[in-house]
């Protein structure tokens, strides 16, 4: 997934409550067997959960963090988030779709919008008073 994000000009940071030493050992002993060249982005250590608390994803009972994912635009604004409890992993296709949609909308100066289920290449909507009641003409899910 990382190469696709890199192509879109997106940086990645991962965060857990593990130490930076643990990150290094995990990367060197296990992850590099799963990802060629190991993990290409910074792995942050949030011991104590301060960052997770700031982002609403720190669970005090277990002392660990939920699967929280935040997309931030170049202005530093959070545009999307998804938070899962630990047993279910994420869907990176949906992450890529959301990044592409937000990039397109931002490029348009926030004038265009992408309807539900939009994928790259499909028409976007240009909300305006004249469109009220006529969305059906341009978008048929």
């Amino acid at each position, binding site marked *: 997934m990382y190469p696709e*994000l890199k192509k879109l*000009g*997106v*940086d*990645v*940071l*991962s*965060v*857990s*409550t*593990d130490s*930076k*030493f*643990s*990150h*290094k*050992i*995990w*990367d060197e002993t*296990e992850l590099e067997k799963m990802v060629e*060249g*190991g*993990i*290409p982005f*910074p*792995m*942050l*250590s*949030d011991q104590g959960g*301060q*960052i997770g*608390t*700031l*982002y*609403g*994803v720190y669970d005090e009972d*277990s002392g*660990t*963090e*939920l*699967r*929280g*994912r*935040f*997309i*931030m*635009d*170049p*202005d*530093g*604004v*959070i545009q*999307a*988030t998804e938070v899962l409890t*630990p047993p279910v*992993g*994420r869907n990176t296709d949906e*992450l890529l779709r959301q*990044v592409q949609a937000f*990039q397109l909308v931002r490029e348009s100066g926030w004038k265009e919008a992408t309807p539900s289920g939009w994928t790259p290449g499909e028409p976007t909507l240009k909300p305006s008073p004249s469109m009220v009641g006529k969305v059906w003409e341009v978008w048929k899910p």
Partner: protein
Amino acid sequence: MPEARVGKEAPDFKSAAYIRGKGFKEVKLSDYRGKWLVLCFYPGDFTFV
């Protein structure tokens, strides 16, 4: 109280980090201003992400 909200500026932070090939560094969220960024939390090393 959590401060992060969709549509609002992301709360800044700094953190110790491991970066492959570079070792241990401090990372600040504000270093990524001007770029798209995905921030991913996960429960722990040696589990799946």
